[in-house]
């Protein structure tokens, strides 16, 4: 019952954050300011859902609570793609100027990469999941190095456009993209929600999960693809923000006593909405746009990550 109370408090907080963000100083500007703020809130909620879901699921299948799906290198791939496009086609090319084309292209590249990656690695069934993660780190570093190399060569004006893409931002989200993302994310989660009880069993470890009749290999593959697609959507929508998932997932584990994924997932989703909308409010009202949300997220997330590492090493 206590978990239910906590959940209600969090939902209240999330609604309050959204309310304040939408209506503060609106001054009757219902046709202009409200729809614009509405789209931003909508984008933040979607990003929050995607990142939180992907991270919790990813941590369950890897049995590790300080990993994020960014370890698969999707963030770096996104940056590489943007850099390549601007470097070779120029910042006025349709793939950069047209948000929709860029969005679809980014998702397609990331998802295809993830699928190819898994396909290659899962060909031999006995490879441990950590092998996959290590290859992911190597790919990520490789993409990152090429990106840096190209950025050093590029025209400074073009570089400022790349720099814009390097940090997640909700300030100019395209409303059509939000609708497209909504549809994809809803479909994915509607499909994945049924697996929650199997994910609960997965927390007991591979051997116990197999003993209890969970089709371990199949569910791990499904969930890896799911989290890759969710990350791809969130990244294409607002930019690289995966680190954020680490914070909300761990806050959710700390906050709720339950081991059930239905609770943990919902909790982390609500926490991420509070953090994103609240954080964006801080960026706009306190820092008056002098910084971006992802700078704040990386700052707080980094501190929290160090805290988690220290805590884990002490408990061993």
């Amino acid at each position, binding site marked *: 019952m206590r978990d239910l109370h906590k959940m209600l408090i969090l939902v209240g907080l999330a609604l309050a954050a959204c309310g304040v963000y939408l209506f503060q100083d609106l001054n009757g500007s219902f046709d202009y300011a409200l729809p614009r703020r509405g789209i931003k809130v909508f984008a933040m909620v979607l990003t929050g859902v995607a990142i939180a879901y992907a991270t919790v699921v990813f941590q369950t299948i890897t*049995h590790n609570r300080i990993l994020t799906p960014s370890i698969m290198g999707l963030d770096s791939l996104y940056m590489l793609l943007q850099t390549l496009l601007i470097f070779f086609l120029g910042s006025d090319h349709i793939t950069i100027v047209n948000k929709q084309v860029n969005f679809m292209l980014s998702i397609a590249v990331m998802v295809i990469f993830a699928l190819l990656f898994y396909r290659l690695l899962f060909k031999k069934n006995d490879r441990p999941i950590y092998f996959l993660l290590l290859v992911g780190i190597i790919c990520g570093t490789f993409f990152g190095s090429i990106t840096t190399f190209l950025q050093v060569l590029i025209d400074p004006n073009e570089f400022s456009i790349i720099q814009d893409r390097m940090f997640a931002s909700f300030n100019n989200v395209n409303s059509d993209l939000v609708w497209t993302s909504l549809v994809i994310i809803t479909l994915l989660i509607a499909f994945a929600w049924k697996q929650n*009880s199997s994910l609960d069993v997965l927390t007991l*470890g591979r051997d116990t999960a197999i*003993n209890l*009749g969970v*089709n371990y290999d199949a569910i791990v593959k499904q969930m890896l693809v799911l989290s890759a697609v969710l990350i791809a959507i969130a990244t294409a929508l607002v930019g690289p923000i995966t680190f954020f998932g680490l914070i909300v997932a761990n806050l959710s584990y700390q906050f709720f006593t339950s*081991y059930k994924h239905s609770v943990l997932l919902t909790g982390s989703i609500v926490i991420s909405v509070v953090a994103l909308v609240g954080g964006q409010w801080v960026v706009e009202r306190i820092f008056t746009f002098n910084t971006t949300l992802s700078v704040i997220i990386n700052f707080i997330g980094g501190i929290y990550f160090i805290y988690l590492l220290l805590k884990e090493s002490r408990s061993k």
Partner: protein
Amino acid sequence: MIQVRELTKLYGKKQVVENVSVDIRRGQITSFIGPNGAGKSTLLSMVSRLLDADTGEVLIDSTNTKKLKSNDFSKRVSILKQSNYMNVRLTIRELVSFGRFPYSKGRLNDEDEKMVDQSIDYMDLKEMENSYLDELSGGQRQRAFIAMVIAQDTDYILLDEPLNNLDMKHSVQIMKILRRLVDDLGKTVVIVLHDINFASVYSDRIVALKNGRVVKDGTTEEIIQSAALKEIYDMDIPIQQMNDCRICVYFNS
């Protein structure tokens, strides 16, 4: 009956289990014994589908295990491994409830709850059912995991060194419970053991492995003989009859 047919497992080029065929009879305790690295745990993992065999097959009541769905398998055979590290904090009751997963998929009905209650009572964990596993001693935790396996309600129960890290009192307690599972509830228990005296006192049949092969397979009386043990362990082990138990005095041999 579980029929193991010509199972082989390779790690690289090394054969850890080599062409092993064994029959495990219903309603008995069968112990796997043998020196370290003999392939006992690997064999058990292959029988319980935690590990894929390279060649060979396992039949359960004459059905090939490859043809069984994972969920159906988990209603007939349960396996408990030695290390049970988990990421979450669970109470005993929550853990035991997981044993009903093959039947209820996480939504327990009245019958499941009854089964969970019975298992907890059976393992004498009633008064601590709401304690968290990380607050328990090794023996209590082991009992909690066995309670989960009992709640799973399978005909066959496989255990990989369940006495590891337990003191004498708890080891005896666990073995007595396994004996009762066989005698009272008609279960079939397969167990990997290191201490041959526990194997001698509690099992009906013993399968001895060495270097990945079955070297002896027979009733306890046939295996607990100095000559047979010499072949298995390369040690001269005198055997003493005490009351009804045949005790191997290997400490100074």
